[in-house]
């Protein structure tokens, strides 16, 4: 009995030790901390880009993916060095306030409005303003991010474009407060509509094995363009912000290699983002 106990004790200690040893901290001396949006992370784009960036520059990229609103806030608090976000009006205001510098457009995709196949509000093929008007008149379920993300800001601007107030307190207007894929899933569960960036939608269709319950109903409206930009955090406000690494990242993203990687990043054979750095 005693030896058996001792053996278990030994195994436990050994297990604990190996767990501690097996994972050495990945110590790169140059670490760039980025706050980005859920769409760049959830689609897998950053997982694809990051190793190439590290290879090209020797800089390790770490990122936390949150809504654009929270990402901007993290930059304002000097907690990150660089941002990759998609809310142009908010970004421009951010640069004007002196929080961010060197805003640079990197790529775009577009937003689409998706909904159930049977399309209860009959929005298929309409333009955005008419489609949202129809959803409102019908009182059809519409899932909103409700989290101050870039997508949410965009959606609010679309409701305003219809000329009426945002349906903030309507029972059919479901504010999830969660990421894009989570919101799509909620819309699907409720048989409702939602607005999403195309990249996340393609990823969603991919996880549904190409047969998603929600289909693209409204697209190709100019108002739906979704521009992603990179911003460095202002080193004059945040002394510790690594402006040199942030600039290296920005230059790399705008360079031929990264732009090519973005162009070739596909799911279900469809490109998710269109590179447009100048």
């Amino acid at each position: 009995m005693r030896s058996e106990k001792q053996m278990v004790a030994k195994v436990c200690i050994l297990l604990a030790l190996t767990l501690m040893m097996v994972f050495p901290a990945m110590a790169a001396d140059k670490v760039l901390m980025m706050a980005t949006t859920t769409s760049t992370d959830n689609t897998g784009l950053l997982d694809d880009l990051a190793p190439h960036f590290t290879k090209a520059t020797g800089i390790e990229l770490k990122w936390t993916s949150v809504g654009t609103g929270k990402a901007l806030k993290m930059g304002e608090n000097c907690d990150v060095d660089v941002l990759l976000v998609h809310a142009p009006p908010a970004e421009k205001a951010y640069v004007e306030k002196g929080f961010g510098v060197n805003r640079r457009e990197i790529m775009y995709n577009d937003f689409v409005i998706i909904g159930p196949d049977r399309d209860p509000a009959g929005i298929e093929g309409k333009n955005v303003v008419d489609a949202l008007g129809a959803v409102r008149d019908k009182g059809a379920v519409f899932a909103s991010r409700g989290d101050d993300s870039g997508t949410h800001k965009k959606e609010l601007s679309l409701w305003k474009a219809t000329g009426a107030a945002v349906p903030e307190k309507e029972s059919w207007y479901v504010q999830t407060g969660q990421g894009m894929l989570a919101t799509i899933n909620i819309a699907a569960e409720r048989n409702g509509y939602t607005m999403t960036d195309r990249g996340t939608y393609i990823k969603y269709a991919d996880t549904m094995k190409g047969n998603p319950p929600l289909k693209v109903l409204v697209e190709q409206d100019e108002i739906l363009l979704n521009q992603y930009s990179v911003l460095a955090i202002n080193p004059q406000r945040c002394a510790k912000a690594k402006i040199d690494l942030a600039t290296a990242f920005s230059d790399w993203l705008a360079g031929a290699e990264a732009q090519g990687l973005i162009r070739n990043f596909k799911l279900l054979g469809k490109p998710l983002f269109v590179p447009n750095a100048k």
Partner: protein
Amino acid sequence: MDFIFVGFIEAFSLLLGGDDQTWSAVAATIKASSGSMVASLILGVPLGFTLGYFDFPAKRQARLLVDTALALPTVFIGLVVYAFISKRGPLGEMGLLFTLPGIAIGQTILALPVVIALSATAVESMDRHLRTLLISLGANRRQLLLSSLWEVRYGVLAAGLTAYGRVMTEVGISMMVGGNIKWHTRTITTAIALETGKGMFATGIALGLVLIAIAFGVNVCLSFLRKK
């Protein structure tokens, strides 16, 4: 509903197949929770013993405070810790945000009340006759204290295990303070939250099973301490 079944199968392949991402999350979880458990036991057991063993003024109020702290929501702890260790916060210079030590600090705050309250209860429920017996046997103050400590060891172990359960399973602190950074601060629970958010339910369930397996392992190890 097949994702539940798929989740079970995936759990095994993740663990046995040596999936890098899973093991990285396992390592992050174990590192952060070990740090916070060591800290909360070192701080909490003496405090809990003091609270249960000695009589001092405002003892009832201290007890009330500790018991209330048992209900601290993890997201709130996460928010407060974030505010303190953000570069703009009072401890910003230490660079703890988005690190495992940062998570461990938050989890220590989570575990501390559990350790204090449960060890205090263990001391309080100790056989009252023991004290009389020890004194009649001629024990001095120091011997009395040490034997009492030895006597409540199982209670303290239970306190540690309960605290460990809370620390291992919390998601609010890890998400707010750690930032769910892949290969660095992505713990099992934040990975579950992420996978669920992405609609990858099977992977989420698999990771949940991995977490339970670790808890089981820890309990098996500790149950041998108890049997001696």
